[in-house]
């Protein structure tokens, strides 16, 4: 079933399917909620699955009335929270892939009452300059994307994106040419707006504030980081492991690559089932 949620004037396109415990899926960059289509169909056998196009993506609004769309982390957390409140079925298991993990983590920190457990797949998150120095490829990737945007080179932008995905998933930029067209638009949007607005405080350019760190640590038992077992050299495999180690989040490995939530629907669904069993009954 499709439905819209309007959050501060921005219409968010959502879909809900299946039966069982509530599960919210949050997509990353260079895609929309279609990223989860196959996986959501598998998950729907055991969960009530909500997918949505994040602001600026897919069928959700691309502009706010009278002003450019804001892609900030705060706004995107409010979007996810608004969807869970609208559905009104209690706290959810939240599964966020790649850049969606920024939102998943901040959501559980800001609204722990809405989240039973958050699973972050290969989060592109660095919390300190020390972390940034240990994985310089992350900053190198952001720079490369920025330069591709400045030069207006879409092929360079796509190559850089593929490189960050590990370069091993043949469908990393898109499943077909129609999707590729959309994803080029999304990547441009990422470079122009979201890169700075969403990732602020999480690229390791400065120390994470004590207030945010404390909020994350307070919810550490509700956060699981997953990584793809087949892309150990991948940037976001490394950032995921680093984040889990630093914050004491449970770290699990599943078959596949950075986009395991799309390319490994059965393994991803199995992970969700296992995590569901980890959640105390009273939570």
């Amino acid at each position: 079933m499709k439905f819209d949620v309007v959050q501060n004037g921005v219409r968010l396109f959502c879909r809900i399917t299946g039966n069982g415990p509530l599960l919210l899926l949050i997509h990353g960059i260079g895609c929309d909620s279609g990223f989860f289509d196959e996986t959501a169909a598998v998950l729907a056998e055991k969960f009530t699955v909500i997918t949505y196009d994040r602001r600026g993506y897919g069928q959700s609004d691309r502009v706010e009335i009278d002003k450019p769309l804001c892609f900030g982390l705060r706004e995107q957390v409010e979007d996810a929270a608004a969807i869970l409140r609208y559905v009104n079925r209690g706290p959810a298991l939240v599964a966020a892939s790649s850049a969606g993990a920024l939102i998943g983590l901040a959501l559980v920190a800001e609204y722990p009452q809405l989240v039973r457990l958050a699973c972050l797949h290969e989060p592109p998150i660095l919390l300190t300059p020390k972390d940034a120095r240990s994985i310089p490829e992350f900053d190198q990737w952001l720079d490369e994307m920025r330069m591709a945007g400045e030069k207006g080179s879409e092929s360079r932008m796509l190559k850089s994106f593929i490189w960050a995905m590990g370069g091993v998933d043949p469908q990393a930029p898109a499943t077909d040419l129609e999707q590729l067209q959309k994803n080029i638009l999304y990547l441009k949007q990422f470079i122009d707006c979201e890169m700075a607005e969403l990732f602020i405080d999480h690229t390791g350019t400065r120390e994470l504030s004590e207030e945010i760190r404390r909020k994350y640590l307070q919810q550490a038992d509700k956060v699981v980081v997953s990584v793809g077992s087949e892309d150990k050299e991948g940037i976001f495999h490394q950032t995921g492991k680093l984040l889990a180690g630093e914050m004491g989040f449970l770290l699990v490995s599943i078959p596949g690559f950075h986009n395991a939530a799309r390319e490994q629907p059965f393994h991803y669904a199995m992970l969700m089932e296992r995590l569901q069993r980890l959640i105390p009954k009273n939570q």
Partner: protein
Amino acid sequence: MTNLEQYHRILKTNLRAKEEDLNDDVLVYNRFPKWDSVTHVDMVSDLEEKFKITFKTLDITSFSSYSAGIEILKQLGVDMDDVSGQ
């Protein structure tokens, strides 16, 4: 080597295609085994570098077959009979 031959060389290298594959019945995006989205981006990048051109979104997504690639190159000002791409 003409620009058409340069185009053929890039297709053959990226797609591991043979001379007899160079036609619209065989070389089609997502149908020819090696022509996936990653290889597609690599080919676009190689063509841009070879012919000193820039593919825009529509060029990238219209490049769906052997002859579509030739048409796009022509639209971007590449003379397929010329030898300037060497």
